[in-house]
C-alpha cells in the first residue's frame, strides 16, 4: 500500500484481558487479550490483529427476552446451562454474555440464586464470560458483590457501569479482579468522564471496556457510529482516557418493526440479517466485542470478519 495507515497517530488502544485459563488462575479454556490496535479496523490486509470477538447473549429469565429468540431456541431458553453449552458448542460464540434478567422482577431478593446462576454458566461452558448484573440500585450492591465473588479468578467482564451507577460494579471489579463495561449514552465526552470517574475510584484502564451504546442500523446507529469514531480518533491521537476497547450490543435490532412484523417464514432470516448488519457496522467502527442474540448471526459475522481480514473481498453476505 502506498500510504501510511497510521495517519501519524500516536496512541495505541489499551489492552484488556478477559477470561483466565488454569495457568492464569481461572478455569477457562481460553483467555482473550482485546484492544492493542494502532489504527482503524480492517485497514491493514492480513493484519496480525485478531478479529472482533462475538459474544452470544443469554439470560436466566427469558420473560425479558425477545420473542424471536425464544421461538428459535425453544426450550433451551429455560435452562441457562444448556443454552450456554449450545452457544459455545453449536452456535460457535467466542464468549457468553449472561444477563441476570431475574433481577428485573419486582421486589427481587433472591441474591444467592444469582451467584448460583453465574456458577452454573461457569461450569456449563469454558468460554470467558460477560455478566450483566442487576440494574436496580437497591440490590446492585449485593448482586455484584455475589457475582464478583463466585467468579473470583475468572476475569469476568462485568456490566454495566453508568455515570450515576458505577460504584457497585467498580467495587466488584476491584475486589475480585474483573473488568467492567462503562456505558455512556452515545457521547464521547460522557464516555471520557465516566472513565475518569472509574479511574478516580481505583479501576485501572486495562480493566475498562467502553460501551458507546449501540442503536440499530437505521434506528440511530449513525449516532453510535459517530460517537465510536470520535472515541477511537481521540484515543489514537493520544487521549488515554478513551484508549480502551469497545463493546457493542445492538440489542434493539430484534424488536424493530421490520423484524417483528416480518412473515413468520422469513422472520429468522430478517432478524439475523438486521443483527448481522448492525454488528458488522459496529465492528467497522472499531468495536472489539460484538454481542448478538440470534444464533444465525454468529456464523455470518465470523465469515464476514474472516474475509475482511484477509482482504479477499469475497464476503458473500445474504
Amino acid at each position, binding site marked *: 500500500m502506498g500510504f501510511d495507515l497510521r495517519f501519524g497517530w500516536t496512541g495505541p488502544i489499551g489492552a484488556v484481558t478477559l477470561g483466565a485459563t488454569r495457568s492464569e488462575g481461572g478455569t477457562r479454556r481460553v483467555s482473550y487479550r482485546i484492544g492493542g490496535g494502532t489504527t482503524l479496523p480492517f485497514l491493514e490486509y492480513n493484519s496480525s490483529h485478531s478479529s472482533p470477538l462475538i459474544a452470544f447473549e443469554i439470560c436466566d429469565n427469558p420473560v425479558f427476552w425477545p420473542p424471536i429468540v425464544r421461538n428459535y431456541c425453544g426450550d433451551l431458553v429455560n435452562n441457562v446451562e444448556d443454552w450456554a453449552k449450545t452457544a459455545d458448542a453449536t452456535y460457535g460464540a467466542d464468549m457468553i454474555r449472561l444477563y441476570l434478567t431475574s433481577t428485573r422482577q419486582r421486589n427481587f431478593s433472591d441474591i444467592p440464586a444469582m451467584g448460583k446462576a453465574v456458577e452454573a454458566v461457569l461450569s456449563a461452558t469454558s468460554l470467558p464470560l460477560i455478566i450483566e448484573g442487576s440494574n436496580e440500585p437497591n440490590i446492585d450492591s449485593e448482586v*455484584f458483590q455475589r457475582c464478583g465473588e463466585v467468579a473470583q479468578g475468572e476475569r469476568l467482564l462485568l456490566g454495566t457501569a453508568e455515570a450515576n451507577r458505577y460504584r457497585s460494579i467498580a*467495587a466488584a471489579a*476491584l475486589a475480585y479482579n474483573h473488568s467492567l463495561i462503562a456505558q455512556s449514552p452515545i457521547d464521547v465526552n460522557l464516555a471520557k468522564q465516566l472513565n475518569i470517574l472509574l479511574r478516580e475510584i481505583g479501576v485501572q484502564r486495562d480493566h475498562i471496556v467502553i460501551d458507546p451504546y449501540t442503536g440499530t442500523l437505521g434506528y440511530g446507529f449513525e449516532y453510535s457510529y459517530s460517537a465510536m469514531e470520535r472515541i477511537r480518533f481521540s484515543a489514537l491521537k493520544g487521549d488515554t482516557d478513551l484508549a480502551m476497547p469497545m463493546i457493542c450490543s445492538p440489542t434493539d435490532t430484534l424488536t424493530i418493526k421490520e423484524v417483528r412484523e416480518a412473515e413468520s417464514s422469513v422472520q429468522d432470516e430478517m432478524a439475523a440479517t438486521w443483527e448481522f448488519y448492525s454488528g458488522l457496522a459496529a465492528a467497522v467502527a472499531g468495536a472489539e466485542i460484538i454481542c448478538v442474540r440470534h444464533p444465525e448471526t454468529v456464523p455470518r459475522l465470523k465469515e464476514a470478519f474472516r474475509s475482511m481480514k484477509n482482504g479477499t473481498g469475497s464476503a458473500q453476505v445474504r
Partner: protein
Amino acid sequence: MTDVAIAAKSGEGLLKKRMASLSSSFSYDETAYHLPVSYALTGIAVHDPATAADAYTRAGDNPIIATECLLAQSAAGKEKEPAPYTGFVGDTVLRKLGYSLVDGSILGLALLVGTPQNAGLAAGICRELQEKYMLTFLAGKVVPALLENGIRLGPEYRLIPLGLTNAHGVHFVDIIARVAMMFGGIAPGDAGRLLTYAAERAKAIVIVFPGLSDEDIALVDAMRVLGFPIISLGSYTSDAWITVTPVDAVRRGMETKGIRVTVTAIPIPMACSPAFEGKSIRKEEMYVEFGGGRSPAFELLKMRGIDEIKDGQITVIGPEIDAMKEGSAHPLGIIIEVAGKSMKKDYEPVLERRIHNFVNYGEGSWHVAQRDIIWVRISKEAVAMGVKIKHIGRLLASKFRMDFPQLLDAVAVTLITDKEKVLAAKKEADNIYDERDARIKEMRDGDVDTYYSCTLCQTFAPNHVCVITPERPALCGAISWLDGKIAYEISPAGANQPIGKGALINAQNGEYEGVNRFVKKASHGEIDRCSLYSVMEYPMTCCGCFECIALMVPEVNGIMVVNREFKGVTPSGMTFSTLAGTIGGGAQTPGFAGISKNYILSDRFLQGEGGISRLVWMPTQIKDELKVRLVKKLTDQGNAGFFEKIADETSATTLEELCAFLDRVQHPALAMKPLV
C-alpha cells in the same frame, strides 16, 4: 492528665525492648499479605524474629509494626479469639468490606479504643456511627462495656469487636493496609504511596477513650501519619489529638476527615423531583401564597462557619400553614444558611438561585423570580397531604445537601412568616443584595487569569467549545463564570474546565494563547483560534443553544442582534431559525456569533468591532427586556440617546428600511471603520 508526646516516647521505648524478646515464628491465617502493615510498609514478609526485626528497623522503629509483630507472636499457637472477638480478619471478609467501601454502602471506618467512662456514652457514639453508615472497629474494654449495655455486635450491626486489649486496634491498620494493596494497587513496600493512599482515600477516624497505656498511646499516635484524625475523649494532652465532648466526637471526626453523609430520600409528605419543575399552581389550585406583590417576601442564602449552624435544622418563625386561611397571601422570608470547607462567599448568589429550582421540585410547591421579588405558592392538594411550611424548609435543606455534597457540610433553613420579622430581615437582605451587585459588577475579565469552558453541548455539536468569562456568560445564558467555577469544583471531571488564558495576542478582539490552546484541544483539533469579543474574526463556535445571534450587516456597516423568541424575518432576509441552522452545530462562522442576552450589557460586547455603537437592529421584545439597564449603561458612558438609534421590527423589516432608518437617525455605525 497524660501528656501524649511523653507517653508515646516511653511507649516506643517499651515496644522496642519487647521487640528484642521475640522468640518463635508466627503468622496470620487466611491472608496473602503476611503481617499486613509490615508487608505494606517495607515489603518484607515477616514470620520470625529476624524478619520482624528487619521490618521494624527498616520502618524506623515504627510502633505499629512493633505492635503487629508482638500481637501476632502472642496469638501464634493459640486458639482463635473467643467470641465475640474476631481477632485478625481474613482476606475474604476484608474483600467484602473493601467492596462496601468502594460501593459506598459504608462511608468510612472508625476505631474505638480504650475504656469508656461509662457504657452509655460508648453506646451513644456507636449508635451515631451506625446511623452515619460508618463501619466501626472496637478494641479494648470498650467491648465489654457495650455488651453490658445490651449493644449487639457483629458485622451485620457494623460494629466489629477486634479484641479485648487496646493493642488489638492494630488490626484496624492492617485492614486499611490490605485495602490499599487489594483495591488501591499499592505495591508492598511502597510506603510513600501507602501513606498517600491512607491519608487521601481511606476515610478512617480513631476515637480514643481513657485507659491507654504508654504502648497503646505510641500505637495510636503513630496512626496520625496515616492521616487518621485522633479524637480524644480521655484526659490526654496533645497538640495533635483533638479533644472533644462525647456528643461532638463523631461529627468532629467525620468532618475533620471530610466524610460526608449523603441524603437520599427527603422525608416530606409530597413527591419531590425535577419532573415537577415545569408545573404551575394556578389560583384555583392554590391554598396559600407568598410574595408576588401581594405580601412582602424574600429569599437569601448566606455562608456561615461550620460551628455556627446545625445541619438539617429547620426553624419556622411565625404562623404555620394550619393558621393560614385558604386562598390568603402571607409574608415569607426564606433564609438558608450553609457551611462547608470549600464553600466561598462568592458562591452565595449562585447557590441562592437554586432555591427556585428546588422549591419547584416539590409536587405541590411553586416558585418564581428571585431575591425580594419572589412569589411562592403551595397547592391545596399538598396541604391536604399534610405539607407544612417546615416541609419546604426540609426540602430545601435536603436538596442543597444532595446536590452539593462536595461543597456543603451543613445547611440550616429558617422560614419567617411573621410580618414584622419578615420586614426586619428583608432590610438586612437588601443590604446583602446591594453588596453582591457591587461585587459582581466590578468583576472584569481582566481581573481573573482563569476562564471556564463548557462542552456540555458537544453531545450534538461535537466540536463546540464555549469559553465563559466574567463579562461573557455562556451563549445559552445559563452559565456564568461563577457557575462554571463552581461546577468545576463540584465535578472536576465534568464539562466545565478551567482555562488559563495565557499570553495576550489581541487585546481588542480578546484573543489569548491559553484560550486558543484549550479550544484547539477541546474542539478535537478543529478550531485553531478563538477571539472572545469579535464577531468578525475567529468568533467563538456556536452549538445551537444561543439566546441570540449577532450577525454582520455589511450594507450598513453594522451588526444586528436577533433573539430566539423573535419569529419574524429580520432585515437580513432570514428568520432566527434559518440563521440558527446556518451557524450552529459547533462551527466557527466569521460574521456570526451566538450570544447570551446579558452579554449585550457587557462592556466587552462587540469590542472587536468597536463596541455597542455597531448595534443597528434588535427586536422590540429584547429591547424592552434590556431597556432600563441598557439605557442606564449608555447614559453612564455618555452615549445617551443611542438606544433610540437602534432599529427594530417596527422601524425596519427590510434592508432598505434599515438603511433609511439608520440614515435618518444618523447611526454612528455608518461612520465607523468598514466592517469588511
